[in-house]
């Protein structure tokens, strides 16, 4: 089980890192989301993998480690706030700069700013 678990964490990390290394905002956002899954699983597992004992007192003999769970819980929520901020930032960047490129120089075929056209929308 442990082996399989860490393989999953490793795959998620790799995919997240690869996507973060792409030059467009949306790929980076997706990559960051994936990376935060990996990090949350990683941190969570510091309490070891426990199959049957939730940390609810009186429900079982032994309990899973509640501390990593509590920390991971807030990490999930903060992670959401971060992803939201980054995605809105990328929208703002596209609105102000006219493209979603974050890899330095702008390529020739970048998505140019499209004029607002509210009548059809």
């Amino acid at each position, binding site marked *: 089980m442990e082996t399989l678990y860490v393989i999953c964490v490793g795959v998620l990390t790799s995919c997240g890192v690869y996507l973060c290394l792409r030059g467009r905002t949306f790929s980076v956002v997706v990559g960051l989301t994936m990376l935060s899954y990996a990090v*949350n699983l990683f941190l969570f597992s510091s309490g070891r*993998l426990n199959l049957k004992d939730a940390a609810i*007192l009186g429900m079982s003999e032994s309990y899973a480690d509640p*501390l990593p769970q509590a920390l991971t819980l807030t990490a999930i929520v903060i992670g959401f706030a971060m992803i939201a901020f980054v995605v809105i930032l990328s929208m703002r960047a596209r609105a102000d700069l006219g493209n979603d490129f974050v890899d330095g120089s702008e390529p020739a075929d970048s998505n140019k700013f499209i004029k607002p056209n509210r009548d059809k929308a």
Partner: protein
Amino acid sequence: MEQGATMSLFWITAILLIGAIIPVLTEKFGRTINTLATMLAPAIALAYVISLLPAVLAGEVIVEYLEWIPSAGLTLSMHLDGLALMFALLILGIGLLIILYARYYLSEKEAVGRFFSYLILFMTAMLSIVLANNVLQLWMAWEVTSISSFLLISFWSSKSESRKGARMALTVTGAGGLALLAGLLIIANIVGSYELSTILASGDLIREHSLYSVALILVLLGAFTKSAQFPFHFWLPHAMAAPTPVSAYLHSATMVKAGIFLLARLYPVLSGTEMWFLIVSLTGLITLLIGAYVALFKHDLKGLLAYSTISHLGLIVLLLGLNTQLAAVAALFHIMNHAVFKASLFMAAGIIDHEAGTRDMRKLGGLWRFMPYTATLAMVAAASMAGVPLFNGFLSKEMFLAETLHSSALGFLSWMIPVLATLAGVFAVAYSMRFIHDVFFNGEPKDLPKTPHEPPRYMKIPIEILVTLCLLVGIFPEFMIGGLLQAAASSVLMTDLPYYSLAIWHGFNLPLLMSAIAITGGLLIYAYRSHLYRFQAQFHESDEKRVFEGVMQQLVKLATKAHDTLNNGSLQRYIAAMLLFTIGVTAFPMIHLESAKTHFPDQPLSGIEITAAFILCLSAIATVIYHRKRMVALITLSVVGLIVSIAFARFSAPDLALTQLAVEVVTVILLMLALYFLPQKTPAESSPSRVVRDVGIAAAIGGLVATINYAFITQPIDTISEFFLANSKTGGGGTNAVNVILVDFRGLDTLGEILVLGIAGLGIFNLLARVRLAMPSSNENGLPWTQDRHPPILAVISQSLLPLALLVSFYIFLRGHNMPGGGFIAGLITSVALIQQYIAHGVDWVKPRLKIEYQTLIALGVLIATLTGIGSWFFDRPFMTTWFDYFDIPYIGEIELASALIFDLGVYLTVIGSSLLILASLGKLTSAHRPTAEE
């Protein structure tokens, strides 16, 4: 040594620091009052130092400590021994004279208050150097002298040469300061203490250490740059762009002497080795010669004095490098003498400049007629500089010449030292002669800007005092400074002093002959100087300023180029670099990580886990493969998130599973909304080599993370959670340990967390306010977006589900303390329920029906959480102590009420406020209700 009962030494610097503000405050009361007020602080300090004089002369060393950060072992410590006393008297005494002089030198239009402030600041720093009994303290003060001298040199900041000169001085002395810091740290590390008194007592330990040579070179770099020794001497002539009082103070008596002070201070620990004698004596000798030779050819009065200073500094350094004890005594003697005569010469040069309008000796001449009194004073000082008998300069120079004869610092070539020293003496006489003859005699002045005359009465007082000292020391040396010199010398040598006599007349001996040669030779050279000038004119005179600026510009260019290469704007490139570095620092130690071996075998696998893992990996890889089709990537991404929440549920973390699930829903809605405004597809633009690089980095990082993860989850667990499990019910009143940790044990963390969440929400709101976003009219294939309004079935279902969803979230919220649930999860569920209304009905429909300001909700949530925490103060408990009790309510039964529940309410409201503020603000962009800054 004794520990002082009072902190009197600290008062010296404290009073001076206060004194640094006084000039600015008293500037408006007129120049005389301003000057007197400025002199007050140094005068008090001087009086105090003089009151300590008898004790120090009797051999006492005053040491005082002030606990600063005792826990970090940092103590401020000061001491006053003979050497420090000698320097303190010079700094304060000459400083006072300089202030008086500057009052007449600077015109009324100039910012005199600021000038005096800088000057006192500099004085404070200098005193802190000499009084410091801690090497870090010494170094700090050292740097402050560099900075305050920069301010002083660039006082006339409108002049280009002032700025350049100041920058050059700061660069050279600052760089030297860094080397000094490194050297001092090495020494402190060898000794194991930053206390100077401990270091001074560990000379042998330091000299025998393998790092001795490194430390020595670093310290010498610091001292030589500060004291303008060859090859770093070039900054001093350019620092002459400073107002003359500054030159007289910094570049004769104090700042340049700081380097020499350091050599003298560390003399007991660093000297005594072959390396010290060789480097120090050679550097001093070269500087002595170059300075003396070049000084003769400078047409600028201050330029001549600057090179003469370089030469004299070289002389002192050479003395410290000669391997006899008497040489060190002579060095200290010459420090005092040089400070006295050179300060008065600089002031005389300033008067000439002030009253004649130029310092160019080719224009000056015959000033004797106009200012005989000043001329007399200048002649006495110049005679002292040249080493004429009956003046103080003669005595120390005589001692110097005698010591050069006894030296063996250069081994078999040591005979060169006296010969070259005499040669330098010849030039010293020649340039001193020129200073007097070219200015006060030698024909008539040529096109001076104004008619020269004697300066104001009080402007001459400082020079008179110093010149009197020259004479008195020159005639009655033993009486005047015998005791002080003895005290200073014993703190430098730290042994019994060798016999020496301060008499004027030692009979006919070799040093006297050398002096005679120097004087005769100097006069001859001056008489035939035109030949030398012609010879010298053949050389192309290089301007150090331009060379220096050139080097600086090259450096800047190089730095810019390096910066541009590294910082090309590609964020991915920075990430890649950081990741590669991370791989490097993590992978290397892991090769040797023996303890990471498995400690217990894997738990058995079941079909569920294998299937889930398979789907997870497949979806993750699919997300990467299809990442350019953004909608597809989003769908596969949501599958990954779903499996993650299932994994939490599987591994006994119901709270996490619920949170992850709710967050997943909100995230996917958010990303879909964002995708509407972003391009739907990513063009293929990564080059094959780039893909290979990124796959490599990603695989390496993934592999490392997995390895680390495996290494620790197969270790036996050693956790602090036993405490939480044991106290969750008794101390926090809840059985759900995770929730109790969140709202009770680690409540402060949670408070910070919801603050971050709120800030993120508000930040997003601001980013979206007044955003000029394109509203796409079609998708990427050119198909227009549908004009259909909201599907009725979704509208009906979601509307009828809303009460139920709110009820569920309320239930989850209430039970959170004992069962999986709580404010975070309940808040997210409520948000999802409300967002669904937005999706089903559109913003236009929701807006009039849900009149809640989400910003207010965030503020309210944070406020409630904070107030709950503050509430415990009213019961004399620390911040965020929770309270709970059980109540028996009729018909309902016994229930528990805890203050943590109110805290959780704050969490609940903040989560709703933030997530809805984010999504609603974004959603509004698709409609006419775009948020504006006013909203």
